[in-house]
């Protein structure tokens, strides 16, 4: 069949890249070829980012660790469906987001993380400097604002503004149109900006 036909088959997927440009994809292929130790190398290279992503989406340490563990198991079981040449990181992130969504669906709305709740009740007159108090308050307020975001907006914001994916990549990962990602991320930014404005000017009004 011609190259044109092949291009049509792959149109809706992420662009293919040679294995040399995607070391993670090369490791995945090695695992598929029976080299299970390559999975350890894959883990070493991706675990910090994947765990951090799960925490940013879920906002809870324990849940994020559960999600990361489940994600790696799912990755291992699904490696057979990974298409060599597809960007492995985006494929992995897509699984992570799905696992996080599944966890949220099972457990219902997420409570605020314990560290944030502790921070809200803490006495600011202890040994903390003024700068440290401000930093903690800012962090707690942002966590509360994030916890109030709809799940889709939060995921779009995290992938777009924190994980460094482009709008197109984020759209492919989340399975939505780019215009939806732009709209969701912008809506989340407005809500967070409003939260920041409240922090700067707690008595009301615009900063």
């Amino acid at each position, binding site marked *: *069949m*011609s*190259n*044109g*036909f092949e*291009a*049509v*088959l*792959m*149109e*809706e997927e992420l*662009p293919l890249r040679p294995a040399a440009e995607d070391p993670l994809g090369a490791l995945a292929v090695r*695992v*598929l070829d029976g080299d299970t130790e390559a999975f*350890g190398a894959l*883990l*070493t290279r991706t*675990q*910090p980012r994947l*765990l*951090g992503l799960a*925490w*940013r989406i879920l906002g809870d*340490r324990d849940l994020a*660790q559960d999600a*990361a*563990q489940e994600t*790696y*198991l799912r990755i*291992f*079981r*699904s*490696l*057979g*469906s990974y298409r060599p040449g597809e960007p492995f990181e985006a494929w992995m992130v897509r699984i992570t987001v799905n696992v996080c969504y599944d966890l949220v669906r099972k457990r219902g709305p997420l409570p605020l993380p314990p*560290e944030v709740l502790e921070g809200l009740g803490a006495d600011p007159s202890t040994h903390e400097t003024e700068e440290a108090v401000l*930093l903690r308050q*800012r*962090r707690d307020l*942002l*966590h509360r604002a994030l916890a109030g975001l709809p799940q889709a907006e939060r995921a779009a*914001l*995290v992938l*777009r*503004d*924190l994980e460094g994916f*482009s*709008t*197109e990549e984020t759209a492919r990962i989340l399975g939505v149109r*780019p215009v939806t990602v*732009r709209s969701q*991320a*912008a*809506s989340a*930014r*407005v809500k967070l*900006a409003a939260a*920041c404005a409240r922090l*700067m000017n707690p008595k009301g009004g615009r*900063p």
Partner: protein
Amino acid sequence: MTNRHVLDRLPFWIAGDLDAPETEAVQAHLNQCPDCRAAADGMREGRAWLREALEPPFDATDHARLRGAILAQICHAEPPRRTSRLTPRAAILVTTAAALVVLALTHPLRHLQPVPPLPAPPPPTGTGISALQAASGTAPSRPGPPRLVRARAAPRQTPDEATGPTRIEFQTSDPTIHIIWLAQATPRPEPDLSQEEP
């Protein structure tokens, strides 16, 4: 562009999600409007705070524990196997091709003319085969439906012709029915890079 327009576009502008003319218009407005510039600075600061607040809190111990738990479970898991996977577009194409082939094969059968009933055989008066058939009670055999006698693909194209349509021909036993199937692949669209973050 009014202040309201610019403030509405700031959440898109800050991430490079506006097209080039709108980006330029917002930038031009910000250069001359201190209020909107302050709002843009506030939004930029908010993004920085977000990055700071969402710095993952995990240390080496957390990572080591998680790694151990994952590897322990992987040891007992079934090793992964390669599976063939069709993209949604490929699945549609394959299904369509299969439907066309089935249609091509059954098309001659759908257009058969009803065969008029044969007149009653005359009483066996003569000799030869007809007399023998009449004596044994067997009717003369009717001609069967037109059968597909030939289905072939067009000769393989040269690389220069690779972008042209693929041609598949079916010839039925009826010389007036000749089925030609043309399949044209469409080229892959170029990604729109103008909306990406600068």
